[in-house]
């Protein structure tokens, strides 16, 4: 699993990458009450806002850690947005993309580097 400084995670198996927000991000947002997901088939570029997550008090963009075409979204989230808080780095995933450029993963932080980054915040 790889991480961004905006607190998204990405986990690639073959050329398909699953993306979501980190436990730290979920904790900072507070209780998630609404999730807006991209359409399947949409092309996203690394750094683009590809989803929106809303708490009681605010809406926040979720940025794509990597580029690719959306092949699947987490259909459980619209009815159960609290899943994002309960299991942010597992069942609370947002979307899966077919990687356009797997080398983008190398530019992201690994778990140790991300935890080091969190300790500086």
């Amino acid at each position, binding site marked *: 699993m790889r991480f961004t400084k905006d607190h998204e995670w990405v986990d690639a198996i073959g050329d398909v990458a699953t993306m979501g927000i980190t436990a730290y991000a979920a904790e900072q947002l*507070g*209780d998630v*009450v*609404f999730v*807006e997901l991209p359409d399947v088939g949409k092309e996203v570029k690394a750094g683009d806002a590809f989803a929106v997550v*809303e*708490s*009681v*008090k605010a*809406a926040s963009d979720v940025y794509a850690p990597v580029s690719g075409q959306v092949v699947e979204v987490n259909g459980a989230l619209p009815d159960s947005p609290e899943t994002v808080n309960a299991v942010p780095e597992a069942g609370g995933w947002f979307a899966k993309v077919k990687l356009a450029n797997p080398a983008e993963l190398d530019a992201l932080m690994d778990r140790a580097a991300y935890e080091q980054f969190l300790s500086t915040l």
Partner: protein
Amino acid sequence: MSDAPLKTTPLTEAHRGAGARMVPFAGYEMPVQYAEGVLKEHLWTRAHCGLFDVSHMGPAFLRLNRRSGDRKADHAAVCALLEPLVCGDLRGLKRGQQRYTLLLGERGGIVDDLMVGRPAADGRQGELQIVVNAGTKEDDFARIASAAGDAAELVRADDRGLIAVQGPEAEAVTAPIFPEAATLSFMTLCSAAFEGAPVEISRSGYTGEDGFEILVPAAKARALWERLLGDPRCRPIGLGARDSLRLEAGLPLYGHDLDETISPVEASLEFALSKRRRESGDFPGAARALGELAGRLDRRRVGLRVLEGAPAREGAEIVDQSGAIVGAVTSGGFSPTLSAPIAMGYVPPALAEPGARLGVVVRGKRQAAEVVAMPFVPHRYRRKPAKEES
């Protein structure tokens, strides 16, 4: 924005110690939420009792400099100083009664909304207790002091602690400390003492629930806060839940739902235009307000249920069924009680009746919405029992 350091309240250290997330708000460092988060804090207040630090607001006393000793005349005299700035009947306040009113500009727009109370004690006639909003208090106080001139002194009390105790268990939490609080009904006030220090208690709030607002000297604020929290039914609640609670209660927030371009009638606050003041037409912008009451109205504050999709937040466009823009959302979010998005905004009067079908535009997408009567969640104020008809 100013670079001035943020002000603190007598309770700031208590919030930090409790793990609150602190944010800048109206020049103060304030808790937006505690460890449990906005959603749970909101639901706790609706079910039990929430404790809010609202010491950033603007409590003050307006005191006649020369009292005659005639209680009725002294009350009328102090009201005569403040009434020209507001649309409420202050002279008609009974002892120990408080009223919600509006400071109005020359063109009849709302400069602020505020509470004005008449103390109950014999020795305090010719005095009014005022609470204005945090973000507007400097301007409000200057305006009121100027109107008072040499006749009265405006004594600020915003260095004190102001603590709101809100929720269905607020009386049960408060009465062991202040037995006199239990005798108050909604929008009445009394004086009491805490550890020998004078406090002012009103039965009012900003959540739609029963509850109290307690003004306490700074030196005793922390002790009172901790004492109230000693009751397991009572938990600290941040500004995040304060906002979602007042939204559900249909209560406007100054600077968002109200501003100096908006009149009381447009804001659906005509209840604040007291009968006597309407009849005499002697408040700022009276011609405008009376014309609007007679039907010459361009826009109206309404409640909206967003029937699909994301919460519509401040600034979202409101559209009619043809897609034409007819207004904008001034406050909006997710209602924890209803588990659905709700909003307030301004629309033309023809579209302002409950049941009107409208749309809101969120991130470029049009979502169905419907005008509904406010409050979204029923008020549970402890009103004085109505006199039985004979």
